[in-house]
């Protein structure tokens, strides 16, 4: 008889393939290892604006999927991570200090590593703008006009050499 594969105890439900390698990748990101403290209480769900507005978005379920290692679902093209509003309510509520929003951001970091963040996420463009100009928003002719009208000094150009050096 072949060995049983992670059958849930006491039932003939679907077989779950666990992938601890995926969880280890999440753990390497800053605060990623906190996911291990999640005991699935669901305190993160009640105040979550995305859970209120989007059927299927559930921070507790995302934590469970990280623990199970459902990597394809979490860091694939349809990742739920981009639906998070980054409001930090879950971080505030979590009795285990899991910081669910930080786990969700860790998933985004894994997607960024593989350059599979969707265009709508605007991440790549923004990071490039910061590296090139030192600011998230480049100075435009409108900026110059508004600042002059308000009697403010013009904005200096930012030397981004130090940024590039510390991020090499």
């Amino acid at each position, binding site marked *: 008889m072949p060995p049983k594969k992670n059958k849930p105890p006491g039932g003939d439900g679907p077989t779950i393939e666990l992938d601890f390698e995926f969880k280890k990748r999440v753990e390497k*990101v*800053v*605060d990623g290892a906190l996911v291990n403290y999640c005991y699935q209480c669901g305190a993160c769900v009640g*105040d979550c*604006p*995305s859970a209120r*507005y*989007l059927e299927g978005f559930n921070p507790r379920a995302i934590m469970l999927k990280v623990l199970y290692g459902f990597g394809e679902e979490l860091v694939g093209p349809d990742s739920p991570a*981009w*639906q*998070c*509003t*980054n*409001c*930090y*309510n879950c*971080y*505030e509520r979590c009795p285990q200090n899991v*910081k669910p929003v930080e786990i969700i*951001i*860790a998933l*985004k*970091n894994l997607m*960024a*590593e593989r350059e599979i*963040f*969707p265009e*709508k*996420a*605007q*991440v*790549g463009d*923004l*990071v490039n703008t*910061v590296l090139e100009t*030192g*600011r*998230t*928003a*480049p*100075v*435009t002719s409108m*900026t110059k006009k*508004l*600042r002059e009208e*308000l*009697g*403010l000094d013009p*904005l*200096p150009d*930012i*030397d*981004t050499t*130090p*940024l590039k*050096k*510390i*991020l*090499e």
Partner: protein
Amino acid sequence: MAALPAKKFAFFPGCLIPVRYPQMEAAIRRTLPQLGIEIVDLDGFTCCPDPIYFKSYDKLAWLTVAARNLALAEEAGLNLFTICSGCTATLSETYQQLNANKILREQINERLARVGLEYRGTSTIRHVVTLIRDEVGLEAIGASVVRPLEGLKVAIHYGCHLLKPSHVMKVDDPDDPRILDDLVAAVGATPVRHGEWILCCGKACKDEEAPAQMMYDLLKSVAAVEADVLGVVCPSCFNEFDLGQVRLARQYEDESVKTPAVYFFQLLGLAQGLSLEEVGLHRHKVRAPALEKYAAAEV
């Protein structure tokens, strides 16, 4: 009013305000000296970097760039103040993480050493509303007012990143904050709390429909309390409420949701006797007619 002895703080301007909404910077630069705060501009600051997009890219890089900004303030021997909730969140979290985690701090200091800097964790970070509450006090803020905004109903949008996570931000109780209500009252206006006051502006959510629905519900609840203006302290929220309202009113064919958004320091400026132009209120997409009578009142 007797002049207060000046307290000096390094000014961290961020990106969105000086580039897109310089009216907010103008309001800060014109109101703080009236409260005895001396603004010190330092060279070399970059983007904080932003806690949504840059942090999504690489948390370690995000902490590194933030630590460099903080190290510049440390070199000048000054505590920092910020004028944007996003900058406050990034710099406060970096301060908390690096002061609590020696390994992380060493890792980041190895990178900062390449540009001759070291993060030591000696400069504190405060959002300007916290700064004036704690360093100036509500009474002295009220004493700087020459034109009280009596009768003005201000719905308050606290936003997310000013308050949470509370043990990092250390601003107020996120479930029942008072800070902005108290500041609005200090300039003579009436703070009003609306049903959806805790709801996020939704900006970071990349769903096609949910952010607009969040905003619509929030603005309907603001309109329901018949507020004259919606007071904000964050340029990201402001963007959602200013240009965003014009978009929403069109999308939902509902003009009733247009409540003009204003940055708190624009209100403080008006109350201190500045003109609408000096605090840049004439530049907003959704104009605030309710404020014109105060601007017209003699000082």
